[in-house]
């Protein structure tokens, strides 16, 4: 019941807010949203404390029939991979509510209900173990996000929001066909756990059907064009959620479905995907470098960072996959924080063009400190979270036998580019002369804004110094994903003798 509670608490809150629209004032609604999201976070913490790190099995499982006539069940569970994404979601949402406290100009109840419905759908995606249920949450996420960007966004919000919805829907249309095909190929089951045990046919096509949906969401080059538009037009909170959690739904999908279900497809497409992600890393970084707009810069840096994540996942070894998953969390924290910071000066100056700023550090020292920490985390300075993730990904890439080291060498230059565009941006915004009169009257961060940023910074440092807290809990689950993505490929590759061989190897691994 714990997972259901975490998933549906926000939905209850959303309904409560919608109903209380006329009874309570604006601030009352905001307080409800804050209390509900904090409560959700509190409940989700018991997932962390109750989590058993010694097994790869799904935990906190719930399963009961839902639409019996179609073989669909309400089936939830989390492992060490989804645990962190659920926590990331429940952690960021209350911060978003706080960050949006003063910036909603119209329709507070609609805004907060959308945000809470979005939280429900996102957590649902990370917990669903039934393919149909997963698809329902995956699609249900679209509507609240569509409203958030479309109603509370910038000037070109309508274009951006429709582009976002159409891109995602086009991708997920094929995934739906793939899900149905899987269902009938495997004795009519949507149960992911059952499917894990099977060797599936037509893996290459199925892999593509799923992967395209995920690649659009990640977004992997060349499917990334919706992202800058969506980010620039979205309200601050929309950007935070988009960068922090929504993009991870794509990479999570790859880990949860593509790698373990379709090892053959994975093997077949790894060269292509790795090429695309390396292009994404370099291209995203180069384009970010020339952006005059802060939000666009951060958006393109996301393309670059998520290229790293995909690269790590397809390294198909411990370091790579763990690094990829850790980097998902890192990116959620640091890019989320970057968007929050950009939102904070946007609230004061109503612009996010870099040229409008300069010398802010003199006027807003506290802001500058936070901005500095987050910038360094995004660059990957040792001691902060970004370094750990990127280092593990590159290490995994070098050790990987699924692609050549040349890719990794090229990708590594992306780290340098990141330093260039981030530090250059920081310099132009924070240092130099404070010559724009509008900037001379800026006020520094309020207590509310500091409260929003401090928790994120705590985790940025925590992961940077002691990532073991996070890695140890995903260890078993990552091994399981790797076993699945390897063993079936081996079965296919040669005679049964090798199967025995792999099983003994597995046994040995367990012994160790």
């Amino acid at each position, binding site marked *: 019941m714990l997972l259901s509670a975490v998933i549906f608490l926000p939905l209850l809150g959303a309904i409560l807010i919608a109903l209380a629209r006329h009874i309570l004032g604006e601030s009352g609604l905001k307080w409800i949203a804050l209390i509900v999201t904090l409560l959700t976070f509190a409940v989700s913490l018991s997932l962390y404390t109750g989590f058993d790190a010694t097994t790869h099995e799904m935990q906190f499982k719930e399963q009961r029939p*839902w*639409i*019996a*006539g*179609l073989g669909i069940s309400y089936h939830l569970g989390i492992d060490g991979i989804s645990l962190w994404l659920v926590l990331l979601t429940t952690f960021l949402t209350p911060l978003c509510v706080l960050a949006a406290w003063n910036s909603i100009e*119209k*329709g507070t109840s609609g805004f907060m209900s959308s945000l809470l419905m979005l939280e429900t759908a996102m957590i649902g995606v990370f917990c669903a173990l039934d393919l*149909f249920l997963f*698809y*329902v*949450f995956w*699609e*249900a996420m*679209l*509507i609240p996000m*569509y*409203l958030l960007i*479309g*109603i509370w966004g910038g000037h070109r*919000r*309508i274009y951006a*929001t*429709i582009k976002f*919805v*159409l891109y995602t*829907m*086009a991708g997920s*249309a*094929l995934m*739906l*066909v793939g899900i*149905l*095909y899987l*269902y*009938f190929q495997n004795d009519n089951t949507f149960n992911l756990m059952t499917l894990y045990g099977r060797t599936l046919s037509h893996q290459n096509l199925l892999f593509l059907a799923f992967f395209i949906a995920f690649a659009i969401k990640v977004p992997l080059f060349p499917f990334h064009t919706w992202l800058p538009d969506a980010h620039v037009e979205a309200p601050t909170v929309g950007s935070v959620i988009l960068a922090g959690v929504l993009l991870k739904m794509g990479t999570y999908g790859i880990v949860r479905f593509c790698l373990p279900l379709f090892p053959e497809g994975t093997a077949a497409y790894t060269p292509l995907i790795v090429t695309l992600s390396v292009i994404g890393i370099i291209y995203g970084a180069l384009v970010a470098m020339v952006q005059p707009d802060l939000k666009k810069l951060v958006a393109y840096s996301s393309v670059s960072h998520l290229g790293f994540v995909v690269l790590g996942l397809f390294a198909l070894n411990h370091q790579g996959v763990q690094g990829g998953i850790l980097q998902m969390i890192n990116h959620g924290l640091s890019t989320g924080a970057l968007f929050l910071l950009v939102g904070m000066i946007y609230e004061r100056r109503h612009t996010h063009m870099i040229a409008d700023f300069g010398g802010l550090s003199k006027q807003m020292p506290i802001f500058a400190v936070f901005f500095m920490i987050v910038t360094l985390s995004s660059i990957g300075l040792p001691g902060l979270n970004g370094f750990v993730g990127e280092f593990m990904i590159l290490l995994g890439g070098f050790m990987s036998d699924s692609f050549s080291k040349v890719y990794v060498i090229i990708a590594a230059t992306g780290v340098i580019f990141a330093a260039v565009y981030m530090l250059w941006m920081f310099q132009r915004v924070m240092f130099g002369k404070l010559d724009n009169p509008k900037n001379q009257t800026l006020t520094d961060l309020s207590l509310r804004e500091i409260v929003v940023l401090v928790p994120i910074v705590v985790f940025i440092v925590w992961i940077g110094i002691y990532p073991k807290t996070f890695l140890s809990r995903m260890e078993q689950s990552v091994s399981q994903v790797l076993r699945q993505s390897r063993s079936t490929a081996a079965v296919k590759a040669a005679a049964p003798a090798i199967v025995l061989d792999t099983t003994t190897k597995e046994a040995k691994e367990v012994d160790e």
Partner: protein
Amino acid sequence: MTINWQLLMPELIIILTFIIVTIFDLFDSLQKTLTALVTIVGCAIALYVSIDMLSLGMEGTEFSNMIQVDKYSLFFNIIFLVSTILIVLISMNYLGREDKRQGEYYLLILLATLGMMLMASGNELIVIFLGLELMSLSLYVLAGYFRRSMVSSEAGMKYLLLGAFASGFFLYGIALIYGGAGTTSIPQIASTLTAGAKSPLLLAGMFLLVVGFGFKVALVPFHQWAPDVYEGAPTSIAAFISAGPKAAGFAALLRIFMEALQNLQSEWIVSITILAALTMTVGNLVAIAQRNIKRMLAYSSIAHAGYVLVGLAAANKDGISSAMFYLLVYCVMNIGAFGVVILARTEDGESLMISDYAGLGFKKPLLALFMTVMLLSLAGFPPTAGFVGKFYIFRSAVEAGQIWLVIIGAINTAISAFYYLRVVVAMYMREPEAELDFLAYPRLLIIALTLAAIGVVLIGILPSYFLSPAQISTFL
């Protein structure tokens, strides 16, 4: 020979209601809205009886096997009666209290409903044809109900001419099938066909039936009448035409093709598949270009006929029950969307542009929320009934191996999201341009619309209650 009247209860109740409404209509001193209320009560009783019969499992044939009352026909009765009740509810304030001729409006709706019920329970091509004509003739008159209005008369005329054409095709098809099989009874045609011999007469007859039905349920390329008629006809009648009669057409189509002509499956399945793909794609693509909301809904309803046809193209048990379930869901959500079009209109009452809806979300939040639910359901977003319906249809088609058709259908779903969401964009994301005039909505209508909206969401979350009746109600 005794007739088991119990089997025909729903039909009899409708006929009785018809008589009562006729009598009420004779007295000018009576309030005209009373006729509407009587119609609703009559339909509600018939609905209750149908549901009761369905749960009791009453089945049988009557009138020398001309009428076949089974779970299938009873399930369709539910669709027709729910649609009719909703239509009467939205008509009440659309026509206003003043209109002296309201009586005949409701009488014609009742007649059309009776025709639909006959089509669903017809066990004989002739009975189906009679039902079809009873329904169509009533609809021709209803489409031209606003005599003073040029567009309404044009709509009525156009509908009559093209509809008569379609009936001609249909009847000719029946004649040829009779020539080939020597009978017009559905079970007998089926048993003749098992004997082998695919005569060219039968094949020709079958394709003529496809054309006839194609006109009636507006499949591409036989759809041209639909947008003009929807645009010109009274909005409530456009909603009516798009719902019940379409379901009735499919009821007969499914029964004829899956029962009588099942052994010719290899002959018709390709053409049905192509028609389904064409109907979905053309309907959705052309809908994107529409600026008038009634025309947009017309093309959207064409596209939805395509989705239902995917169920027939699957040609299995799930295909039929998914088509049935989808038709039920589709009728509710489509009438719901038309209901909002009726309630919110510009001053002159005509030419409803999508841009007129700008700002509705903040002026009339409840109405806009209701419209949003219906549109999202039409677009097939979870957790709405439209999503479950589409999913079930696609599922049955994948089961039958029609992967390509499902891919086309799934891509169409993404295309359709574009134009449905455009209305949502207008309602919530644009500044108002035109002043909309709102009809005062009666309490009954609010209840009906709220029930419909809650129903659409509830069916989306807990579909089993409606899904299992559909699954046990096929004739296969």
